[in-house]
């Protein structure tokens, strides 16, 4: 089972600086909370909030891949389902659907839809395991993209939905830069903490054990498939929250949002950041968003994909654990283990 990230000791597996939690987390939290004081609107939303949103989608992948050994490429499709749910059940300006439900019903509903969709994908892809997961989820992601593009009755086809507004309450329009940043930060922090907590819970430990040796876990009496599907459900909830934020951020959703390149971009983010610790996806998202924004000055906007692709290849070759892995390399470790095959 080479999708496994074998670790002898789960607490030591994390990058040293974040393993204990404590100080590093406090510093990070302080920096992120105070960030709006120094950042312009552009840096606040286009860099800050956008990185956090992409990081959350990648976090849902990291939860599956890092702890469960299931590399799912359909997480962005799941986020897209939540986004489409917001557009269909909330309000949009495309004149299709738009039932106008209040946001406090739409959001939980959309997130639940995402969770269920993810669990279904999990149920399908758990029929086989290992490297097959990546193929099946990629096929699902591609099929979802083509379906949303072809189908006008449900998804309004190619144009998708536009004019989706974030809610306005307590006298605040939550898409204004500062409120939106804080909402995103709060949700991202919640997801991050939840993943950290879940990883140490009984469920999380069982999931990691299943990743390392499914046969043994099955023999002990654990329901391997159920654990995987529940993990997919949780990952779907995280992706769903990110999807809601994404659709508020863009104000629109169309098949282009969830196309194959975008879905693979999530995997790139997770791999570049590193999938050993939940901070990895956010780190990867920040790097990718910064590259996306400033590569224009470097090589022109058109060739951005070549740049990110080459960077990705270098990371895969040089450091299987992404940037987190590079970080960890500065500290001597006994027998560095990577995304390599288990014996």
């Amino acid at each position, binding site marked *: 089972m*080479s*999708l496994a990230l074998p670790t002898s000791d789960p607490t030591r597996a994390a990058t040293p600086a974040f393993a204990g939690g404590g100080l590093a987390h406090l510093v990070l939290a302080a920096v992120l909370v105070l960030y709006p004081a120094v950042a312009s609107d552009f840096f606040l939303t286009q860099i800050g909030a956008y990185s956090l949103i992409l990081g959350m989608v990648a976090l849902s992948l990291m939860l599956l891949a890092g702890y469960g050994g299931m*590399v799912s490429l359909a997480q962005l499709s799941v986020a897209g389902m939540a986004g489409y749910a917001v557009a269909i059940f909330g309000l949009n300006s495309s004149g299709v659907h738009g039932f106008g439900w209040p946001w406090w019903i739409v959001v939980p509903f959309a997130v639940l839809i995402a969770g269920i969709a993810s669990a279904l994908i999990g149920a*399908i892809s758990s*029929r*086989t395991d*290992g*490297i*097959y997961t*990546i*193929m*099946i989820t*990629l*096929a*699902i992601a*591609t*099929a979802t993209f*083509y*379906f949303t593009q*072809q*189908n*006008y*009755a449900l998804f309004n*086809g190619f144009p998708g939905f536009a004019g989706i507004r974030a809610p306005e309450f307590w006298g605040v329009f939550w898409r204004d830069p500062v409120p939106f940043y804080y909402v995103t930060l709060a949700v991202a922090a919640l997801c991050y903490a939840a993943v950290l907590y879940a990883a140490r819970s009984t469920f999380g430990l069982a999931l990691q054990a299943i990743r390392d040796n499914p046969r043994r876990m099955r023999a002990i009496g654990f329901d391997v498939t159920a654990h995987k599907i529940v993990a997919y459900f949780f990952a779907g909830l995280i992706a769903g929250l990110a999807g809601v934020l994404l659709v508020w951020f863009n104000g629109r959703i169309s098949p282009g949002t969830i196309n*194959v*390149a975008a879905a*693979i971009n999530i*995997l*790139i983010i997770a*791999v570049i950041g590193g999938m050993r610790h939940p901070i990895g996806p956010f780190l990867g998202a920040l790097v990718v968003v910064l590259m996306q924004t400033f590569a224009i000055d470097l090589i022109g906007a*058109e*060739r*951005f*994909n*070549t740049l*990110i*692709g*080459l960077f*990705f*290849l270098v990371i*895969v*070759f040089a450091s*299987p654990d992404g940037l987190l892995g590079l970080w960890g390399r500065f500290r001597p470790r006994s027998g560095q283990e990577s*995304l*390599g*095959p288990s014996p």
Partner: protein
Amino acid sequence: MSIAGETGAAPRGLTRGQAWGIVAFFAAAVFAWLLFAVWPDWLNAILISKKAFFSSIFNGITLAGLYFLVASGFTLVFGLMRNVNLAHGSLYLLGAYLGYEVTRITGYWLVGVAAGFAVLAVLGLLMQVFVFRRLEGDDLRQTLVTIGISIVAADLMLWMWTGATYQIATPAWLDGAVKLPVVTAYRSSGDAVFLTYPFYRLVVLAAAIVIGIGLWLLLNRTRVGMMIRAGVDDRAMLAASGVNVHAVFAVVFAIGAGLAGFAGVVGGSALSVAPGEDVRYLLASLVVVIVGGMGSITGAAIGALLIGLAEQVGLVYFPTYGIVLTFVIMVVTLAIRPQGIMGKAR
């Protein structure tokens, strides 16, 4: 499982094989009737028209031929090396572009086809030797590398050939339509109206069948094929028995990539060459291989037939839900037979 099968021709009734034979016979009979009879009105009412029905069936079968060409390379490489080559669609598209350029420059379509195969085969060989061999036994990293390659390749091809749509010019002897001996209707004057079909598409189908048979012979009747099959079943044991597995891998990868390039030229002549086609054929390969079973040429043929037919029939009868049909086939296969129709349980 098959009690009837074990007891052979016991008086208890039909064997499994006989039962399937009867089912197949009736299916063939119904199909033959559909094909040669002039349809009554109620049937036309259900299936739009005989012409629409059989056009979609024939389109589905020729598309299946194309999918088979692409997917057979994918499945061979996967079956042998456990290497999910997600850059396979890029190989297809690159083959198509190369075929277009070579055909345009030389003026000979066949040269373009040959170039598509040869260049991509060499490229596949280089990829195997310089990239995948370094990551051997590490499925996930190999897959990630192919993703990286596909991103870079797609972007560079977009740079080189822009977003324009190309069509590879086929020679005159391949153009035109043939009249199939299928009567779709009678005119009021009593003349029969025959179904016509583009000759080129029949050639694509024939090429796919010839290559399929060739691959089958290669795998089942030659020494190299024996090694490949042994490698699919147990790679370590093959290496232990003194075979140079790396040479076998390189050959298989070259064949797989070459077939993708070949399919690119052939498909680019039948349909069109444009960015995004790589994803389309990658999806087709993935689904064909998931449905048909990993590492099986026969499985790839069955999977390609199912997916090609589903896509084209879906296009005619429920246009916006066509992709769902493909998807349903995949899900049902995974539910009933996770290893694919012809796949071996591991």
